[in-house]
């Protein structure tokens, strides 16, 4: 679904990378190029060199939902309802269809009680959940979550994971520092020094990381039982 060929952009240096549909976890140390890669996939930045296509299209031609790590950067509108409705309104969705869509996604995410709240009164974690709701309301072809779970507690992160599975986008790229979350994805890409060093199933990738802190904690526990 995602093809990168001879991609050079800032510190990124990708000779060839193919990521299929489904849920892919992007992992790696700070400053390894994860966010830069996600920005190229979202069309937020254009590559200096090389090609990147998503389902054969330029990234900017793909309907993408983006949720970044910094909660304050995700929200634009005054109330939660307006924030979640905004994408649908920009897309000229019929008015009668907007309210059920907004309430539906808020309800699925367990944050219906936030509906009439003003965005600036939300906690950091609540802002992340609202941003996810706004992205999911649009049923994107590509959903990108850039360390979104950083500001979520265990229960909220589990809700987000459940919702992603309930409302699956054809392709989900999730950058995370929670290796247990990464271990539940369909595949994992490990970035280091701007390059995708390992890519494959979680088992294949974490095999290479078994002696490091990046090995999933629940796998360590399971190996002791």
């Amino acid at each position, binding site marked *: 679904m995602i093809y990168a060929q001879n991609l050079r952009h800032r510190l990124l240096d990708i000779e060839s990378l193919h990521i299929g549909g489904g849920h892919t976890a992007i992992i790696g140390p700070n400053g390894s190029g994860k966010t830069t890669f996600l920005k190229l996939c979202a069309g937020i930045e254009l590559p200096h060199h090389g090609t990147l296509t998503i389902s054969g299209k330029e990234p900017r031609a793909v309907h993408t939902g983006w949720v970044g790590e910094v909660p304050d950067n995700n929200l634009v509108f005054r109330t939660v309802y307006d924030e979640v409705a905004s994408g649908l309104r920009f897309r000229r969705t019929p008015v009668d269809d907007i309210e059920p869509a907004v309430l539906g996604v808020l309800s699925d995410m367990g944050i219906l009680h936030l509906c009439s709240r003003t965005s600036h009164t939300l906690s950091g974690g609540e802002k992340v959940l609202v941003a996810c709701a706004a992205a999911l309301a649009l049923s994107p072809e590509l959903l990108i979550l850039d360390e979104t779970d950083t*500001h979520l507690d265990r229960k*909220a992160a589990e809700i987000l994971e459940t919702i992603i599975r309930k409302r699956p986008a054809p392709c989900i790229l999730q950058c995370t520092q929670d290796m*247990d979350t990464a271990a539940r994805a369909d595949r994992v890409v490990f970035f280091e020094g701007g390059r995708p060093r390992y890519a494959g199933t979680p088992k294949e990738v974490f095999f290479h990381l078994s002696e490091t*802190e990046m090995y999933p904690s629940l796998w360590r526990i399971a190996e002791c039982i």
Partner: protein
Amino acid sequence: MYLKADRLTLSHGEWNLRADGVFGQGVHLVTGPVGSGKTTLASALAGIFEPASGRINRDGILHLTLSMQFPEYHVTGFLVKDEIRSWHLPVAETLRQAGLDGRQNAKTLTLSRGELKRLHLTCLLGNLWDAVILDEPFAGLDCREKKRVCAAIEEGNHPLIIIFTHEQAVLPAADVIWEIEEGALVCRGKVPEAIPAWKGAPRYLTRATEEGAQPKNIRLQDATEALCRMHA
């Protein structure tokens, strides 16, 4: 030396949080759901959020600092070297500790968020404080850096550390566990006795205790050692 929340009530509109308890010397871990008021409580304990009622007593604490969730809020230096000097720390040594060798002339706000968090925590923990309040110190850090921060916390250079977090994989050894539940701060007690009652415990700890293990502390290594002892 202690920090005491004395019948504290914190309010934002209709939202309220009650806190009553004493944070003595040691490492305190405070967890709670999204929106439960962790950041508000951290700010109140640091003295930058005015409580609706009650008071905060600081006994024997002359130097207290708060690390905010978002490291951008702390930046005062245009270049990385300026930022480090603003903390009165040696540039080369601090860069080495933060894993940012050679980046002294980079513009501080061009660092990745994880790198900025590393720089901020290295600077903050590199100073000497009587009390340190850390709001989500592990957010945005990779696993290696989380471990480094845990090691810095465990070094014991700061007599009282209060950590507000929902980190699920890499935690430091802690002395006392607190949780925010239904609008109130609740003390679960001292570690390890507090572990079974800790509702927001990380998954690995829950999994280990479900197997009957009795970890001595809350780190992953404590959970695996407890399981190994069971099966030895």
